[in-house]
């Protein structure tokens, strides 16, 4: 029987950690978007912690 564990490990090693983290962040954003959007978010880019607030 084939052992699939090393294959999965090899693939995940190929993708740099910085890109894996970026993918995780995109997934988290999508999940957050699926949930209820807060009223503040809809007000535009002035929400606490919004990326654009850090100019």
């Amino acid at each position, binding site marked *: 029987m084939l052992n699939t564990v090393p294959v999965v490990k090899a*693939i995940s090693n*190929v*993708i*740099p*950690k*910085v*890109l*894996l*983290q*970026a*993918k995780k*962040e*995109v997934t988290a*954003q*999508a999940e957050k*978007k699926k949930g209820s959007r807060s009223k503040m978010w809809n007000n*535009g*880019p*002035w929400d606490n912690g919004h*990326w*654009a607030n*850090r*100019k």
Partner: protein
Amino acid sequence: MPLSLPPEWASFFAEHNFFVGVSLDGPKKFHDQIRRYSSGKGSYDAVIRGVNLLRQAGIFNGIICCISAVNQGFPKELFNFFITKNIKKLKFARVKNIGHCNNISSLIISPSQYTDFMIAIFDLWLELDDPEIEIRDIKSVVNLILGGNERECIYMGQCDKFITVYSDGSIYGCDSLPNNDTLYFGNVRNKPKIIRSDSRLKNFQKILKKRKETCQACDWHFICKGGCASNCYKQLDSSEPQGEICENLKRYFEHISAKVRLYGAL
């Protein structure tokens, strides 16, 4: 930040929940050529002292590094300098003439030179592969290519939402734009309703809308959304994109996209 940050200011910022970003243009030999006191003395040592104070106060919010003719040819040296100093939150900005300062023509670099620099920084970031390193523009572009929506202000297509308040309370457009009469939207003493209905603001919004329509057919519109209002168009009131800026932005997005695909992250 002021060139010399007194400890009491650091305490004041911490007490009132201000996070402070600092301008540092790389190692002393670069920084001191560009950012000098009126006496001619470079400000590097004072800036580093300020960074240490902000770190101690827990309110250091990273570095903005201006890329000019002085440091543009040294991406690896700059990158290694910041990492060695344990500075991992970075933003790079191209030096360009927007009319706020005099006598900077010798420092200005072209969009192509800046793109070469940013591509080199992206490759270094990928090669070092440290998830703690956050280079704002790169983080935003990678996120958008992967289908996210984490937008740096220049990729929001909402330049009318950013304003600058000057010391006399006057409100102008984003500080990347010239503070001339066409972008004077009012004063903090005015009621918000009056500012929002200002004819110059309305006119600016109209220009931005027209620009969006022009750019919508572009393959990279999903990232740049028409780009920075101060940068991407021939004139402030024009909706015709600057070819050189667009070509280089596309080259930058294509490079990042190709690398993301190469590693199978897409």
